[in-house]
């Protein structure tokens, strides 16, 4: 438990993905952007949706839905970009919608429930039980790692 409380981020940038509520430490977040035009990368891992020109810097956009094994977003829903810094690189997490920046000092970071799907569990630091909802706290480094992204789940042909 002690190690968990030590790594607990004070402020989280929150967002939604397929009805789930996620958060990532604001210290890792550079900015949040609307939908950006992307260049697709043929033959790249499926979760890599494309490359974005962010003021001259080339940013890899990782579709978190795909990375976490959630169903694909419907075509009319344009993803938003949460730009994070991860191991010296700038990367974009594609999410459904952006929430507020939350002060989470009053909440306890709890271990990830073991029966969550592996793809999600693997990318989480822990969960926080908020009134009315549960916040899943992401590890940005693992979230952008596409080597473990699952194959498309059933229901999305």
């Amino acid at each position: 438990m002690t190690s968990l409380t030590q790594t607990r981020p004070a402020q989280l940038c929150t967002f939604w993905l397929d009805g789930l509520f996620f958060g990532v430490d604001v210290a890792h977040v550079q900015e949040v952007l609307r939908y950006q035009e992307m260049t697709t990368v043929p033959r790249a891992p499926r979760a890599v949706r494309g490359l974005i020109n962010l003021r001259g810097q080339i940013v890899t956009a990782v579709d978190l839905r795909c990375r976490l094994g959630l169903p694909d977003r419907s075509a009319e829903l344009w993803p938003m970009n949460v730009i994070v810094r991860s191991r010296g690189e700038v990367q974009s997490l594609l999410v459904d919608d952006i929430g507020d920046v939350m002060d989470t000092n009053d909440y306890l970071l709890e271990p990830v429930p073991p029966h969550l799907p592996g793809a999600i569990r693997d990318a989480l630091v822990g969960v926080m039980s908020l009134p009315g909802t549960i916040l899943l706290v992401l590890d940005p480094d693992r979230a952008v790692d596409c080597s473990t992204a699952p194959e498309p789940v059933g229901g999305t042909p």
Partner: protein
Amino acid sequence: MDDDAEIIAEFLVESHENLDQLDRDLVELEQQPGSRELLSSVFRTIHTIKGTSGFLAFNRLEELTHAGENLLSRLRDGELQLTEGLAGVLLEMVDVVRALLGLIEQSGTDAGGEVEVDPVVARLRTALSPMVEEASRGTSADVSKPADRDGFETLAGARSSTNGAEASSTNDAVEEQTDRRSAVDSSVRVDIDLLDSLVQQVGELVLTRNQILQKSDNVEDVELLRAAQRLDLVASELQESVMKTRMQPIGQVWAKMPRIVRDLAHQLGREVDLHMEGHETELDRSLLEALRDPLTHLVRNAMDHGIERPGDRAAKGKPAKGVLSLRAFHESGQVVIEIADDGAGIDPARIGEVAVQRGLVSRDQLSRMDAREVIALIFQPGFSTADEVTNVSGRGVGMDVVRTNIERIGGTVDMSSQPGRGTTCRVRIPLTLAIIPALVVEEAGDRYAIPQANLVELVRLEGEELRRSVEVLAGAPVLRLRGHLLPLVSLAEVLGGERGDADEITVVVVASDDLRFGLCVGQVHDTQEIVVKPIGRQLKGMSTYAGATIMGDGKVSLILDIGGIAQTEAVASVVEQAVETRHTSADETALLVLEVSGGRRAALPLHEVARLEEFSAEIIERTGSTEVVQYRDGILPLVRLADAIGLPSPARPEVPLSVVVHEDGGRMVGIVIDKVLDVVETELALSDVGRRQGVLGSAVVQDRVTDLVDLDAVVRLAGAAV
């Protein structure tokens, strides 16, 4: 000698700066004698000068700085406290060092002159020794104090004398001074990070310029147009200048080669003449830095494995003295560095043997490799032929690291060798990694950049010419280009799409190392300067892309890695075969291996094959009992190979017919087969087994028993029928 002069000039510039810093540090140190940080900095400075002067054989300078270093290390480690007296000795040392540097600048040596070194060295030592005793004995100050005072007095006297010495030596050189110093004064040292950020910003500027140029094309405003053109010009010049600031001559890396070679020659008992050519060849400093170790390693290798001992050389009738030559030059936007020796060369048989022993390849794999591939095995991790491990080479970490390091900076390394005659290692590296010219092509609506360095030519084929020049060998399309076979790779397929059937194709002929192939692309745009940007780590493993760039309109485009594509598309093997055909040895035959009669193998000599065609079953007509097709304004008789060589011929009317067209004295015959399997180069060991009508015999080709078709007999069959 030039090299030495260059090193010395560099050493002087560096040392003068260091000394200025040292003065400041020492003075500051007197204010705050306890500062460990300042002491460490002073120590490092003196240590650096000592190291370099030792390397350049400036013995007096070395002796002096060595004594100073000893004192400083005591101070740094807190074993001594800095007193005014000690600071004085140290400052005096700095003065003498400066005087010695002045002497070196004028005469190229630190010997002679009027600079006195010994008194200061002595004082540095005496300043040290009583303190050491004090520290080790831990006795009272009575012992050390007189010595201390003593030291201080002599110091004061000597100080004026050295000052005098310095003054006189400066006086002598007063007229020359301005000239000599120009090396120091006309250059400024700039922080590398600053240069890097400059390059980045210029990159941005170039992109913005491209954007503006694109937009200003459709603008009537003359003023704006003129401004855009000026911007274009200025940006280009700025870019060039900034890139130049990062360019350094390769001589900087080579400068230490004579010394390394001399030492190694001594150590290994070799006699070597070192020739160096192309010092002035410039390349980006980050690349230069990265080249340092691989080049040193290659030179060591050439000395250890290449050049033989004088006795062995004499026995082979070569001059006892070996020649090691380093050559650097620019070639098509790349820097080529050759390291050549006239030593024993590489014996492919031995390499193969060792590779098998070390389990790098199986004997079977080895048997299928050509000499070039075998030599390339030395770049495998864990490879070493050295029987004993010396401290020069033979630890089995080496060539693979050399290759990795060179490939990391976008370069390639390649070995060629003639046993008994010598070995040449050729390293190719890009001039710079930051901004490169590239050809922009389009495929499926996206643009891709192909580095100009990989570009050979553009070929456009349509209609009849397309059909005549492109053939499909075993599913792999090849282009006949001026008598050579060029493998064709479809960019659409490389990118995971489908190869479209078009009536015209655009082929970008590209080369990577010695591999050439044609890349069929949808559309060719123009050539432009692109700024290479790194791509995220998720994509680093993909061999298809070398990076990404931002186009004039702000969109991101991927840069194709031609070498990587060649590898993933396995063009490599095809090309080597194609290359091989040109100089096939007498005992090797090129065979077209076919499948007939649902799974049986047969082979035809490749040189008897005019072309390969496919006919749909509907167009087959008959004259008498012979099947024919209309072909090139004539009639092509068909022979079913299965029938001709006495194998069952399953009727498959729905499948288009694969036909090998054989041409003999203007008469053509189409031989119907199931499909083409491969083209192989092999030594034919024909066995009588299986000999029958239409079959000369059988041979083992690619580990499978294969019938060798008696083409004459088959043709006669067709002839008889016609």
